[in-house]
């Protein structure tokens, strides 16, 4: 068990390391001079040279990478150009907002998508199920920024029930959460339906049914028990992805989270901030992934971590 966790932690660290290294290389490969980005287009040659020296941009690439690694391990990623504050601190201040949004969205998704998927699997190929099926296809086909703007128009502009942007009151959480959840519900409910249908067709369920086990027990205990792991994994992966992937929705609703921060950092070419954002989100995503794996034995007692698990 401990060995397994250590191994997974090592893998996770490697992923994070590779990610930030990729970002380092990309930033250096890209056309455009970070010094110009920092000093502005009107800077003189002397000023540019000074900026390069200050940030070590005049050093050989290998040496720059070495310094970058040292910064990485001390957690000191430099000062954000546009915020004039330690980059990592700027990101961490935004993080709670993204976490709140992601948590609310995943909860809403789970509460709606799991019963919906079960419902669909209980009456396959009926007209109602077909209707819901087509609806879920529509749900996963609408661009989320567009859904967001539409919800915003209706429920913040035309009928002002909810605030249009920012996060001043808790009601501001509603529209972005719904926007994210529409897509996720469509995806997860279809997945639940698929898993449950497979389990309903399995021989063990026929045996249980012929023994006279109640229908509700068949559904929730037998079939769901065996669908729990894939469904939980899907929800967890979605959650991990949301920690860095709600960029679009955050921009639409001017949500003060990490997603809108990265867009701003990219627009202003704020390199320390870019690296810090990627680092923080990568660590989070890997951490959540690890937690999901560690939770498997709770869901399925047959699983013993480190033995059967093949990463």
């Amino acid at each position, binding site marked *: 068990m401990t060995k397994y966790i250590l191994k997974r932690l090592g893998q996770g660290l490697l992923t994070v390391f590779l990610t930030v290294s990729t970002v380092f290389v990309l930033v250096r490969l890209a056309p455009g001079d970070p010094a110009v980005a920092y000093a502005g287009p009107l800077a003189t040659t002397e000023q540019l040279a000074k900026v390069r020296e200050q940030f070590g941009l005049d050093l050989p690439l290998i040496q720059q990478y070495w310094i970058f690694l040292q910064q990485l391990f001390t957690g000191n990623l430099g000062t954000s150009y546009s915020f004039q504050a330690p980059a990592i601190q700027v990101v961490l201040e935004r993080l709670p907002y993204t976490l709140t949004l992601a948590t609310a969205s995943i909860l809403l998704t789970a509460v709606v998508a799991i019963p919906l998927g079960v419902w669909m699997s209980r009456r396959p*190929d009926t007209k109602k199920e077909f209707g819901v099926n087509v609806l879920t*296809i529509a749900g996963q086909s609408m*661009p989320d920024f567009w859904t967001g*703007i539409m919800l915003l128009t209706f429920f913040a502009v035309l009928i002002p029930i909810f605030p249009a942007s920012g996060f001043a009151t808790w009601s501001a959480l509603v529209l972005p959460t719904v926007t994210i959840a529409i897509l996720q519900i469509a995806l997860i409910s279809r997945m639940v339906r698929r898993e449950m249908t497979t389990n309903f067709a399995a021989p063990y369920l026929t045996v249980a049914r012929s023994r006279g086990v109640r229908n509700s027990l068949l559904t929730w205990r037998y079939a769901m028990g065996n669908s729990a792991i894939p469904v939980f994994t899907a929800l967890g992966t979605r959650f991990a992805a949301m920690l860095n992937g709600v960029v679009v929705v955050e921009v639409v609703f001017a949500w003060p989270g990490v997603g809108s921060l990265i867009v701003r950092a*990219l627009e202003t070419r704020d390199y320390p901030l870019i690296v810090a954002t990627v680092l923080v989100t990568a660590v989070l995503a890997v951490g959540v992934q690890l937690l999901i794996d560690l939770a498997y034995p709770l869901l399925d007692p047959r699983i013993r971590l480190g033995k059967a698990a093949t990463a």
Partner: protein
Amino acid sequence: MSLSDTAVPPAGGPSGLPAEPPARKSSPSAVTKELIAKAGATRRRAGAKFKIRTGVICTLLVVVPIVLAAFLPLPDPSHQDLAQRLLPPLTEGHLFGTDQLGRDLLSRILHGGQVSLTIGVLAVVVSGTIGIIFGAAAGYFGGKLDSVVSRLIEAQMSLPLLMMLLLVVALFGPSIPVITFVIAIAQWPEVARLTRSMVLVEREKPYVSAARILGLHRVQILIQHVIPNVIKQATLVVLLLLAQAVLLESALAFLGAGPQRPFATWGRIISDGQDYLTTAWWLVTVPGLVIAIMVVGVNLLGDGLRDRPRRKKKGA
């Protein structure tokens, strides 16, 4: 499956039931037409058919005008006419109305759609090719190659994807090749994973051993015999990825990381229209609907093709 209690023999076939109710002498089977029509399998087939048809109609509804945009009697998409700013749809010959600079919205959507579609199709071709090659090789040869490819897939799936895409586009400029490449890179793991798992199954089948005994080279077996057996399902996934590619491109364009030349794409048109939400609803609503209709179409088509019973009755 729902069929557990109403097993239905193929239509018209003899059921072979010994005890036949005398009242139904005319029919050779106790299974009536109504029962067949009600059976899950029939409904599933009808559902698949409906999905495929609707999917094709929705897709063509958007794709055909886009392809023919150059031949349609439309104003130039970048022609500005400040006297005709923000006209609502269906006025003065502007089917979808005009935008804040008096440009014809329909023309902008169609020309922008050409760019969006080109990017989507190219990206999917690239990611499909990479994914099938890597996935098939990993699944068939196994060993070190497999573990390298599998690790790559895993690593990429745990990366902050959209952020990396934005980063690449922001750094290298929003040109069509860069965006295409970025979307392709984002999508290949999906294809590779699926191809790999299918090849793993296929590899164990007798025909592969037969080919091996006949002395065929491993690569030849893979290319000539294994891949043709998995390519159909793999292309089905690729079709669904096209829908995703179009969505991804529009999201990038919405965030300002879309191509500007030759024409602004859908996401960009929507993000421009945001400023006129209260005065000109059509600037956001219409392009969004166009994206949604097309993506729904492609998704329905892919779903319908997947639901369709594998074996056709009348010999293909």
